[in-house]
Protein backbone atom coordinates (compact mmCIF):
# COMPACT_ATOMS: atom_id res chain seq x y z
CA UNK A 1 0.00 0.00 0.00
CA UNK A 2 2.78 2.43 1.03
CA UNK A 3 4.80 1.42 -2.02
CA UNK A 4 1.80 2.05 -4.27
CA UNK A 5 1.27 5.50 -2.72
CA UNK A 6 4.94 6.40 -3.18
CA UNK A 7 4.80 5.29 -6.82
CA UNK A 8 1.72 7.43 -7.42
CA UNK A 9 3.37 10.46 -5.77
CA UNK A 10 6.52 10.10 -7.89
CA UNK A 11 4.58 9.56 -11.11
CA UNK A 12 2.25 12.53 -10.44
CA UNK A 13 5.22 14.75 -9.53
CA UNK A 14 7.19 13.86 -12.66
CA UNK A 15 4.21 14.49 -14.97
CA UNK A 16 3.30 17.79 -13.28
CA UNK A 17 6.91 18.98 -13.26
CA UNK A 18 7.38 18.22 -16.96
CA UNK A 19 4.09 19.99 -17.68
CA UNK A 20 5.21 23.13 -15.82
CA UNK A 21 8.75 23.28 -17.19
CA UNK A 22 7.82 24.78 -20.62
CA UNK A 23 5.83 27.48 -18.81
CA UNK A 24 8.86 28.32 -16.68
CA UNK A 25 11.07 28.60 -19.79
CA UNK A 26 8.42 30.75 -21.52
CA UNK A 27 8.37 32.98 -18.41
CA UNK A 28 12.16 33.37 -18.55
CA UNK A 29 12.00 34.28 -22.24
CA UNK A 30 9.24 36.87 -21.74
CA UNK A 31 11.20 38.19 -18.73
CA UNK A 32 14.24 38.68 -20.98
CA UNK A 33 12.11 40.45 -23.63
CA UNK A 34 10.67 42.78 -20.96
CA UNK A 35 14.10 43.39 -19.43
CA UNK A 36 15.39 44.57 -22.82
CA UNK A 37 12.25 46.56 -23.62
CA UNK A 38 11.98 48.25 -20.22
CA UNK A 39 15.66 49.23 -20.07
CA UNK A 40 14.72 52.34 -22.08
CA UNK A 41 12.84 53.67 -19.03
CA UNK A 42 15.98 53.97 -16.91
CA UNK A 43 15.73 57.75 -16.55
CA UNK A 44 13.98 58.60 -13.28
CA UNK A 45 13.14 62.23 -13.96
CA UNK A 46 9.50 61.41 -14.76
CA UNK A 47 9.06 60.02 -11.24
CA UNK A 48 8.99 63.62 -10.07
CA UNK A 49 5.31 63.97 -10.96
CA UNK A 50 3.18 61.48 -9.02
CA UNK A 51 -0.33 60.86 -10.25
CA UNK A 52 -2.50 58.06 -11.54
CA UNK A 53 -0.56 57.84 -14.82
CA UNK A 54 2.77 57.58 -12.98
CA UNK A 55 1.31 55.03 -10.52
CA UNK A 56 0.08 52.94 -13.44
CA UNK A 57 3.45 53.10 -15.18
CA UNK A 58 5.38 52.21 -12.01
CA UNK A 59 2.99 49.29 -11.34
CA UNK A 60 3.47 48.01 -14.89
CA UNK A 61 7.24 48.29 -14.49
CA UNK A 62 6.94 46.46 -11.15
CA UNK A 63 4.93 43.65 -12.70
CA UNK A 64 7.36 43.38 -15.63
CA UNK A 65 10.48 43.30 -13.51
CA UNK A 66 10.65 41.14 -10.38
CA UNK A 67 11.94 42.79 -7.17
Amino acid at each position, binding site marked *: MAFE*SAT*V*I*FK*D*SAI*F*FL*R*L*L*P*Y*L*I*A*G*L*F*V*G*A*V*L*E*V*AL*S*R*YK*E*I*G*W*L*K*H*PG*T*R*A*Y*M*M*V*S*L*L*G*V*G*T*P*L
Partner: protein
Amino acid sequence: MIPLLTAGVPWALMMCFLISSPLNSPNTFFLISGALGYPMAIAQIVAAISMGVTSGWVTSLLESKGYLNNQLRSPLSRTSPLPSVSGENSFPAKNPSSKPEAKTLGRVFWRSLCRAGTRRLVRQLAIFVFVASAIKILIPTAWITSLFGKDQWYSIPLAALLGIPLYVNNASSVPVTRTLVEGGMSPGAALAFLLAGAGTSLPAMSGLLVITRGRIVTLYVTLIFLGAVVFGSLYSLLCP
Protein backbone atom coordinates in the same frame (compact mmCIF):
# COMPACT_ATOMS: atom_id res chain seq x y z
CA MET B 1 15.54 51.06 -4.97
CA ILE B 2 17.85 52.71 -2.43
CA PRO B 3 19.14 55.32 -4.94
CA LEU B 4 15.51 56.20 -5.78
CA LEU B 5 14.63 56.59 -2.09
CA THR B 6 17.65 58.72 -1.28
CA ALA B 7 17.00 60.82 -4.41
CA GLY B 8 13.67 61.87 -2.90
CA VAL B 9 11.22 59.88 -5.03
CA PRO B 10 7.83 60.17 -3.24
CA TRP B 11 6.72 57.29 -1.02
CA ALA B 12 3.57 56.93 -3.13
CA LEU B 13 5.58 55.89 -6.18
CA MET B 14 7.89 53.68 -4.15
CA MET B 15 4.87 51.95 -2.60
CA CYS B 16 3.42 51.35 -6.10
CA PHE B 17 6.60 49.58 -7.11
CA LEU B 18 7.08 47.75 -3.81
CA ILE B 19 3.55 46.33 -3.94
CA SER B 20 3.22 45.48 -7.62
CA SER B 21 6.72 44.07 -8.14
CA PRO B 22 6.68 41.00 -5.86
CA LEU B 23 3.04 40.21 -6.72
CA ASN B 24 3.76 39.32 -10.31
CA SER B 25 6.55 38.70 -12.78
CA PRO B 26 6.72 36.93 -16.15
CA ASN B 27 7.74 33.71 -14.35
CA THR B 28 4.83 33.93 -11.94
CA PHE B 29 2.37 34.65 -14.74
CA PHE B 30 3.41 31.63 -16.80
CA LEU B 31 3.69 29.28 -13.82
CA ILE B 32 0.18 30.23 -12.65
CA SER B 33 -1.09 29.83 -16.23
CA GLY B 34 0.34 26.32 -16.37
CA ALA B 35 -0.82 25.21 -12.95
CA LEU B 36 -4.07 27.10 -12.33
CA GLY B 37 -5.14 28.34 -15.76
CA TYR B 38 -5.06 31.65 -17.63
CA PRO B 39 -8.05 33.25 -15.83
CA MET B 40 -6.20 32.99 -12.49
CA ALA B 41 -2.95 34.33 -14.03
CA ILE B 42 -4.79 37.28 -15.62
CA ALA B 43 -6.63 37.97 -12.34
CA GLN B 44 -3.30 38.00 -10.50
CA ILE B 45 -1.73 40.49 -12.94
CA VAL B 46 -4.84 42.75 -12.89
CA ALA B 47 -4.85 42.60 -9.08
CA ALA B 48 -1.12 43.44 -8.93
CA ILE B 49 -1.51 46.54 -11.11
CA SER B 50 -4.72 47.67 -9.39
CA MET B 51 -3.19 47.20 -5.95
CA GLY B 52 -0.13 49.17 -7.08
CA VAL B 53 -2.22 52.12 -8.28
CA THR B 54 -4.51 52.06 -5.21
CA SER B 55 -1.53 51.94 -2.87
CA GLY B 56 -0.14 54.97 -4.70
CA TRP B 57 -3.32 56.94 -3.98
CA VAL B 58 -3.49 55.87 -0.32
CA THR B 59 0.21 56.52 0.30
CA SER B 60 0.03 59.88 -1.43
CA LEU B 61 -2.85 60.88 0.87
CA LEU B 62 -0.94 59.80 4.00
CA GLU B 63 2.23 61.45 2.75
CA SER B 64 0.45 64.76 2.23
CA LYS B 65 -0.81 64.63 5.84
CA GLY B 66 2.77 64.09 7.08
CA TYR B 67 2.24 60.57 8.45
CA LEU B 68 5.19 59.17 6.53
CA ASN B 69 7.91 61.66 7.49
CA ASN B 70 11.29 60.23 8.55
CA GLN B 71 10.41 56.67 7.59
CA LEU B 72 13.71 55.91 5.90
CA ARG B 73 16.23 54.22 8.17
CA SER B 74 19.51 55.99 8.87
CA PRO B 75 22.18 56.20 7.53
CA LEU B 76 19.92 56.53 4.48
CA SER B 77 18.20 59.86 4.25
CA ARG B 78 16.05 61.66 1.72
CA THR B 79 18.26 64.75 1.54
CA SER B 80 19.25 65.18 -2.07
CA PRO B 81 16.39 66.30 -4.27
CA LEU B 82 15.51 64.49 -7.46
CA PRO B 83 17.36 65.98 -10.45
CA SER B 84 15.16 68.58 -12.07
CA VAL B 85 13.49 67.80 -15.35
CA SER B 86 13.06 70.51 -17.92
CA GLY B 87 9.59 71.18 -19.30
CA GLU B 88 6.29 69.47 -18.68
CA ASN B 89 7.00 66.45 -20.83
CA SER B 90 8.73 64.51 -18.10
CA PHE B 91 6.84 61.24 -18.45
CA PRO B 92 8.97 58.43 -19.85
CA ALA B 93 9.56 58.96 -23.51
CA LYS B 94 10.65 56.13 -25.70
CA ASN B 95 14.28 56.42 -26.60
CA PRO B 96 14.50 55.51 -30.28
CA SER B 97 18.19 54.68 -30.02
CA SER B 98 17.59 51.89 -27.51
CA LYS B 99 15.41 49.50 -29.53
CA PRO B 100 15.74 45.90 -28.43
CA GLU B 101 18.17 44.06 -30.70
CA ALA B 102 17.96 40.34 -31.44
CA LYS B 103 21.52 39.80 -30.25
CA THR B 104 20.94 41.61 -26.97
CA LEU B 105 17.68 39.76 -26.39
CA GLY B 106 19.37 36.41 -27.03
CA ARG B 107 22.17 37.29 -24.63
CA VAL B 108 19.76 38.41 -21.91
CA PHE B 109 17.65 35.23 -22.33
CA TRP B 110 20.73 33.01 -22.23
CA ARG B 111 22.01 34.84 -19.15
CA SER B 112 18.65 34.41 -17.38
CA LEU B 113 18.62 30.68 -18.27
CA CYS B 114 22.14 30.16 -16.91
CA ARG B 115 22.03 32.20 -13.72
CA ALA B 116 22.08 30.52 -10.32
CA GLY B 117 18.63 31.88 -9.44
CA THR B 118 17.06 29.96 -12.34
CA ARG B 119 18.71 26.69 -11.30
CA ARG B 120 17.44 27.27 -7.75
CA LEU B 121 13.94 28.00 -9.13
CA VAL B 122 13.87 24.73 -11.11
CA ARG B 123 15.14 22.80 -8.07
CA GLN B 124 12.47 24.35 -5.82
CA LEU B 125 9.78 23.67 -8.42
CA ALA B 126 10.78 19.99 -8.55
CA ILE B 127 10.79 19.69 -4.74
CA PHE B 128 7.45 21.45 -4.22
CA VAL B 129 5.74 19.60 -7.08
CA PHE B 130 6.66 16.46 -5.10
CA VAL B 131 5.40 18.05 -1.85
CA ALA B 132 2.14 19.00 -3.60
CA SER B 133 1.64 15.43 -4.82
CA ALA B 134 2.28 14.15 -1.29
CA ILE B 135 -0.27 16.65 0.13
CA LYS B 136 -2.85 15.37 -2.36
CA ILE B 137 -2.53 11.87 -0.96
CA LEU B 138 -1.88 12.63 2.71
CA ILE B 139 -4.35 15.46 3.50
CA PRO B 140 -8.07 14.60 3.31
CA THR B 141 -10.01 16.84 0.94
CA ALA B 142 -12.68 17.30 3.63
CA TRP B 143 -10.19 19.31 5.71
CA ILE B 144 -9.36 21.59 2.78
CA THR B 145 -13.04 22.09 1.91
CA SER B 146 -13.98 22.83 5.51
CA LEU B 147 -11.31 25.54 5.77
CA PHE B 148 -11.12 27.04 2.27
CA GLY B 149 -14.29 25.83 0.53
CA LYS B 150 -16.65 28.10 -1.40
CA ASP B 151 -19.30 27.90 1.33
CA GLN B 152 -17.06 29.19 4.12
CA TRP B 153 -17.31 32.99 4.55
CA TYR B 154 -13.90 33.08 6.23
CA SER B 155 -12.05 31.11 3.52
CA ILE B 156 -10.65 34.18 1.72
CA PRO B 157 -9.38 36.15 4.79
CA LEU B 158 -8.01 32.89 6.24
CA ALA B 159 -6.17 32.07 3.00
CA ALA B 160 -4.74 35.61 2.87
CA LEU B 161 -3.68 35.36 6.51
CA LEU B 162 -2.05 31.96 6.00
CA GLY B 163 -0.30 33.18 2.86
CA ILE B 164 1.70 35.69 4.95
CA PRO B 165 3.83 33.11 6.84
CA LEU B 166 3.48 30.06 4.56
CA TYR B 167 4.40 31.43 1.15
CA VAL B 168 8.04 30.84 0.18
CA ASN B 169 8.15 31.85 -3.49
CA ASN B 170 6.12 31.27 -6.65
CA ALA B 171 7.97 28.08 -7.64
CA SER B 172 7.10 26.52 -4.30
CA SER B 173 3.63 27.91 -3.68
CA VAL B 174 2.00 27.56 -7.10
CA PRO B 175 2.10 23.71 -7.17
CA VAL B 176 0.86 23.56 -3.56
CA THR B 177 -1.97 26.01 -4.35
CA ARG B 178 -3.01 23.86 -7.32
CA THR B 179 -3.24 20.81 -5.07
CA LEU B 180 -5.33 22.80 -2.57
CA VAL B 181 -7.67 23.96 -5.38
CA GLU B 182 -8.04 20.36 -6.57
CA GLY B 183 -8.79 19.42 -2.97
CA GLY B 184 -11.65 21.91 -2.65
CA MET B 185 -10.10 25.36 -2.04
CA SER B 186 -12.19 28.07 -3.71
CA PRO B 187 -10.49 29.99 -6.56
CA GLY B 188 -10.97 33.28 -4.66
CA ALA B 189 -9.17 31.87 -1.61
CA ALA B 190 -6.38 30.60 -3.88
CA LEU B 191 -5.93 34.07 -5.40
CA ALA B 192 -5.93 35.67 -1.93
CA PHE B 193 -3.30 33.14 -0.77
CA LEU B 194 -1.07 33.84 -3.78
CA LEU B 195 -1.42 37.64 -3.51
CA ALA B 196 -0.86 37.93 0.25
CA GLY B 197 1.91 35.36 0.18
CA ALA B 198 3.87 36.88 -2.68
CA GLY B 199 3.66 40.39 -1.22
CA THR B 200 4.85 39.34 2.22
CA SER B 201 7.37 36.68 1.19
CA LEU B 202 10.75 36.64 2.93
CA PRO B 203 12.73 38.41 0.15
CA ALA B 204 10.15 41.21 -0.17
CA MET B 205 9.82 41.77 3.59
CA SER B 206 13.53 41.53 4.43
CA GLY B 207 14.33 44.18 1.79
CA LEU B 208 11.63 46.45 3.18
CA LEU B 209 12.60 46.01 6.84
CA VAL B 210 16.23 46.87 6.15
CA ILE B 211 15.52 50.26 4.59
CA THR B 212 12.22 51.52 6.04
CA ARG B 213 10.64 52.11 9.44
CA GLY B 214 7.50 50.79 11.13
CA ARG B 215 4.80 52.96 9.54
CA ILE B 216 5.84 52.06 5.99
CA VAL B 217 6.04 48.35 6.86
CA THR B 218 2.63 48.46 8.60
CA LEU B 219 1.08 50.32 5.67
CA TYR B 220 2.63 47.85 3.22
CA VAL B 221 1.37 44.72 5.02
CA THR B 222 -2.10 46.28 5.52
CA LEU B 223 -2.42 47.23 1.84
CA ILE B 224 -1.29 43.75 0.73
CA PHE B 225 -3.69 41.97 3.11
CA LEU B 226 -6.70 44.15 2.24
CA GLY B 227 -5.91 43.95 -1.48
CA ALA B 228 -5.66 40.15 -1.31
CA VAL B 229 -9.03 39.89 0.47
CA VAL B 230 -10.77 42.36 -1.89
CA PHE B 231 -9.43 40.81 -5.10
CA GLY B 232 -9.95 37.27 -3.78
CA SER B 233 -13.60 38.14 -3.06
CA LEU B 234 -14.04 39.82 -6.46
CA TYR B 235 -12.58 36.79 -8.21
CA SER B 236 -14.89 34.52 -6.23
CA LEU B 237 -17.87 36.59 -7.42
CA LEU B 238 -16.77 36.81 -11.06
CA CYS B 239 -15.41 33.26 -11.48
CA PRO B 240 -17.29 31.08 -8.98
